[in-house]
């Protein structure tokens, strides 16, 4: 079954309450997201999901030279960064979009839906 990455985004600067307006709203979003995750598991869509520490805790590593070069901070310099994600299995994009809409409501943010490669598409890429 096709796999999709559902990504949620948050501010680059660490904010109080994880970027939510208040502690109560943050806790409510966590609860709603938990309920959504349970539903993904129950209906057989769940592969993996988790939230990330703020982007300024990231380290970017370039291992292409003899010794790895490290940069303090995320790979992309943008105002918003990946804050959490789901990896799901869904029959097609319509199903994935419907789930993303639920996830978006739960976590109170916009969600990007992006398909993973499949065995077929990797094969086609190899031979392109």
């Amino acid at each position, binding site marked *: 079954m*096709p796999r999709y990455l559902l990504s949620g985004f948050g501010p680059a600067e660490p904010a109080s309450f994880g970027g939510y307006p208040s502690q109560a709203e943050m806790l409510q979003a966590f609860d709603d997201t938990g309920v959504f995750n349970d539903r993904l598991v129950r209906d057989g869509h769940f592969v993996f999901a988790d939230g990330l520490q703020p982007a300024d805790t990231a380290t970017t590593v370039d291992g292409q030279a003899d010794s790895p070069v490290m940069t303090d901070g995320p790979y992309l310099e943008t105002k918003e960064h990946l804050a959490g994600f789901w990896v799901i299995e869904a*029959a*097609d*994009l*319509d199903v*994935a*979009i419907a789930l993303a809409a639920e996830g978006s409501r739960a976590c109170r943010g916009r969600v990007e*839906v*992006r*398909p993973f490669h499949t*065995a*077929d*598409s990797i*094969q*086609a890429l190899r*031979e392109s």
Partner: protein
Amino acid sequence: MTPGDVDEVLARVHREEWARLVAVLARRFGDLDLAEDAAGAAFLEAVRRWPNDGVPANPGGWLTTAASRKAIDQLRRESVRGVKYQAAHMLDDRTPPEPTGPVDDDRLRLVFVCAHPALAMEARVALTLRLVGGLTVKEIARAFLVGETAMAQRITRAKAKIKAAHIPYTLPDADAVRERLGGVLAVVFLIFNEGYLAGAGDDPLRPELTDEAIRLGRLLRTLLPDDGEVAGLLALMLLTDARRDARVDPSGELVTLAEQDRGRWDPGQIAEGLTLVRERLAAVAAGAPAPGRYQLLAAINAVHATASSAADTDWGQILTLYDRLLKVDPSPIVRLNRAVALTELYGPDSGLRELDPLVAVLDGYHALHAARAELLRRAGRSDEAATAYSRAIALTGNPAEQAYLARRRAELDR
């Protein structure tokens, strides 16, 4: 049969069979690219063979057989190289045969895939014209004043996204059909509008686009004969397009509805549009859902179509219809058109009272300034009218409209 006859048959068969051919192949092989290539190759073979061999008794069947063979050949060639080794399973048609009936599911599926909401509007339009309409990339590029390479990339990218993101080649369920149908109708209406009043370029009207939109509207009507909005959109397009020959004068200037020679309206298209509007009125009276925006717009145009002159128009009826439209579609554009009806009934001041607050939201829209200029002229506020005409001229890219507005501005009594 002369070669000319064969050409004519080929053109007709292409119009009639292209969408079905692509749709059947797409369902069978699960690949829009392959379906498009194989359909194109089958038509090329027909162009080569029919002039000598004669037109087959069942051209659609001949093309389906030829195209399936082309598709299988292509899959075999690719599977020799190892690509799509798994596609071999598609060689047997395991999908159940489509139920025969008024609804041709394959073509409807194709329409819904091309107008999928996950695709950008311009991609939906291009894909619909190519895969459902059968226009060439060159024709679509010319119609939208885009380079051929850019248009080809737009279509290729859309097809690649459909494949990579697994946009399903299935019909949405009944509820989703209604929801998604709005997007499909929007694609068709956008194609129509671009042809009805081209946004830019040397040609004020692009009949190839209005014709194609009407053809798509007819196809949807065949596929969804009971849907009110499908009927409404077709009626709206027919009633509007009926005025085509009267809309531009010999000097290339746009002629407004009020000034058009109504004798030049196409009586056949008007009759067909009115029949559809009456059918919907009867259906709604018999309990069908309340009319949506396309049915209401069609009804408004039906009032115009049955008036012998602008002065004889039942503006009260038009205002009532705009009031209902405003409830369904409370957009500033509807309010703009409603203001014109208000003016006809109660004079320019009442129209202007409605229009003035819209300037803030529709300042970049040429039709707002054109309508406002007209009302200001009628209210005797010539200087303000001149400014509004100038603003409309600057905003529209349509040469016929520019010519009309410039003349109106020059005629102002100042």
